[in-house]
């Protein structure tokens, strides 16, 4: 078979397709988005009716994937690291229900926060749930782990986490695919109460999960993804996890590596190998992408054994992504350059596109709010978050999906009236509706701006589940139709927009204002254009 040139994300998708996956579930989130997009674009997936439509959020995605697994088929669910917080309830309990068809939970972490609010390390979640983790070092392994992950999941009857980070997700390399496997036939779990987490059953299942731990460790110890490369110089033993292995090897392109190296790409950590290294080496150095989770486990609380260095003792920076230079410095190697970025180079932060509807909505909001004191606009996750930057300086919060509406409510409860929420259409259906019901049930004095651009913009223009539904949803949950206002955010309509906003800001109850204009990045998307016309938006 011919080699394919694939992003890490795409390699995972191709591996899953070749392994007989029947469905992929996800909500877009950088750096995980391209996994699902690859399946959506695949002719093979279409011909074989492999599910790939976007889900409304990560929790619904996780649950749908679990349902597909219940019915005996192989399913994958993909999200960015903070998406796992949204899916956490379903995720944690899926390790207690266990699976029927293989289930892989792909989580893409974002160390250095290239496109995220934090750099949480998802391996903690997998450890918390006590399930195996696969963490590829390169695109080929990403492919193979997706391919092999379903088998692993079916062997232990547990979900398996496939953890990647931004760098691998968005880096391209040649991948050698394997032969195609058939999809599973439908089959129910042998025990029809396996997924019924009533206490008595949950206790039994949990004991099963606990009992599987030693088997999981043995699996890691025999995994082809973990390797112990012995070396003659035992002054340092080096442990790498995932992609950190590459940065180590980059530093030995023109010199010989004499230290023993333990490459960990499957967890639980291979205990035998770690014990061997700790027993033989004077000192352990750990390179891991993300939090110092392996480092903490090996170091222990008392730090009385073999010295361990890594992110905790300052050998490596405590936060941020690794790179070849950070690893070189830890090893005491010289960097080849002392060139600095010239002072003339200015920062160029991301910004909303010229002509974007969010900009006009913010201009109108700024004018309408001019008679109130500042600091009352709660925003959300999306392109409009960029309204926090100059020249707009328009928003005062960005926390998590849906938090704009509920934080505005809490602030209004505290007496900050009017409080304003700014949320996008896709984020509204992701996690805004429940908060809106909270507002309606108390008729909180909040003005909620749902800036509708018919798409999930920041991640590249994926479908929005809110398309054509926003007013119906708002009325359905109890917002009074008189206080749902729609306008087209343009410079020409500025006076009308400001007027509407002023009126609703003065209203002591729930208002929903919908500035509605298509995202200019999606103008070439004919399917979307036709749909907008058909819906009369």
């Amino acid at each position: 078979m011919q080699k394919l040139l694939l992003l890490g994300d795409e390699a995972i998708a191709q591996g899953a397709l070749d392994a007989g996956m029947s469905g992929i579930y996800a909500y877009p989130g950088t750096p995980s988005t391209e996994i699902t997009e690859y399946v959506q674009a695949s002719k093979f997936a279409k011909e074989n009716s492999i599910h790939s439509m976007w889900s409304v959020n990560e929790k619904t995605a996780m649950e749908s994937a679990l349902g597909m697994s219940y019915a005996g088929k192989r399913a994958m669910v993909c999200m960015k690291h903070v998406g796992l917080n949204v899916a956490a309830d379903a995720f944690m309990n899926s390790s207690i229900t266990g699976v029927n068809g293989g289930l892989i939970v792909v989580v893409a972490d974002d160390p250095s926060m290239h496109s995220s609010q934090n750099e949480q390390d998802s391996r903690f979640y997998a450890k918390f749930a006590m399930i195996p983790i696969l963490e590829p070092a390169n695109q080929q392994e990403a492919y193979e782990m997706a391919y092999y992950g379903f088998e692993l999941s079916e062997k232990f009857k547990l979900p398996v986490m496939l953890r990647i980070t931004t760098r691998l997700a968005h880096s391209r390399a040649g991948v050698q695919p394997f032969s195609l496997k058939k999809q599973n036939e439908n089959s129910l779990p042998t025990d029809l109460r396996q997924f019924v987490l009533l206490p008595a059953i949950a206790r039994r299942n949990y004991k099963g999960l606990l009992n599987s731990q030693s088997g999981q460790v043995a699996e890691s110890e025999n995994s082809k993804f973990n390797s112990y490369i012995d070396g003659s110089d035992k002054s340092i033993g080096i442990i790498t996890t995932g992609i950190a292995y590459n940065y180590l090897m980059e530093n030995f392109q023109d010199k010989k590596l004499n230290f023993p190296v333990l490459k960990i790409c499957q967890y639980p950590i291979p205990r035998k190998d770690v014990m061997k290294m700790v027993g033989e080496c004077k000192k352990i150095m750990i390179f891991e992408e993300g939090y110092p989770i392996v480092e903490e486990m090996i170091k222990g609380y008392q730090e009385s054994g073999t010295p361990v260095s890594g992110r905790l003792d300052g050998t490596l920076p405590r936060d941020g992504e690794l790179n070849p230079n950070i690893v070189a410095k830890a090893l005491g190697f010289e960097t080849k350059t002392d060139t600095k970025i010239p002072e003339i180079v200015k920062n160029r932060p991301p910004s909303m596109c010229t002509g974007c509807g969010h900009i006009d909505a913010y201009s109108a909001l700024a004018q309408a709010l001019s008679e109130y004191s500042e600091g009352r606009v709660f925003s959300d996750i999306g392109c409009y978050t960029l309204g926090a930057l100059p020249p707009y300086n328009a928003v005062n919060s960005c926390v998590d999906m849906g938090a704009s509406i509920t934080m505005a409510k809490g602030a209004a409860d505290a007496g900050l009236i009017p409080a304003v929420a700014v949320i996008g259409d896709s984020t509204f259906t992701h996690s805004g509706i429940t908060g809106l019901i909270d507002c309606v049930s108390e008729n909180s004095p909040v003005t909620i701006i749902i800036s509708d651009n018919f798409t999930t913009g920041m991640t590249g223009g994926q479908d929005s589940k809110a398309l054509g539904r926003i007013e119906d949803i708002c009325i359905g949950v109890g917002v009074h139709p008189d206080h749902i206002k729609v306008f087209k955010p343009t410079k020409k309509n500025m006076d009308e927009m400001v007027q509407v906003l002023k009126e609703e800001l003065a209203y002591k109850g729930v208002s929903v204002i919908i500035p509605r204009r298509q995202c200019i990045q999606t103008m070439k998307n004919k399917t979307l254009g036709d749909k907008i016309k058909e819906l009369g938006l």
Partner: protein
Amino acid sequence: MKTDIVLAGVGGQGILSIAATIGMAALHSNLQLKQSEVHGMSQRGGDVQSHMRVSEKEIASDLIPMGSADIILSVEPMESLRYLPFLSKDGWLVTNSTPFINITNYPNIEDVLTEIKKIKNHIIIDADKIAEEFGSKRSSNIVMLGAASPFFNIPFESFEEGIRKIFARKGDDVIETNLKALRAGRDYTEKNR
């Protein structure tokens, strides 16, 4: 032989299309390849870069170590300077001269060019103008690739083949225009290096 390239520009300027063409050229020459891209938030008008590594041997890191890039290929002059710590002592900086101004404190362009001229090996090319001369402003990125092509350890024919593959769906006219753009960029460098 190995070539490490930092591609630089502003989100939306299409540096990934240059990367794709280099990728095709590398495949055509049976070389190994790793190419790290920036997706997500920065694509909205922020500074973006792509680390591209091609080699006969297996490549370890997706990221280029500092001080070892053979080429900085930038479609925007100020952005070319942002990655100077990556350039090797003998590396080449190849940049478009047309600024992309979407920030209020963009420096004086003459000062930017003066700074670029301090680099031992540099090519400053007005790729937009050259592309426009034969009627296709959209090919300016391919002009840039042509201008950097002499510094790759990849034969020029492989770049031409890469363009034929990348633009195959768009028809012979588009292929021909882009091949012209590639050659025009290369000619400029041959005359001005």
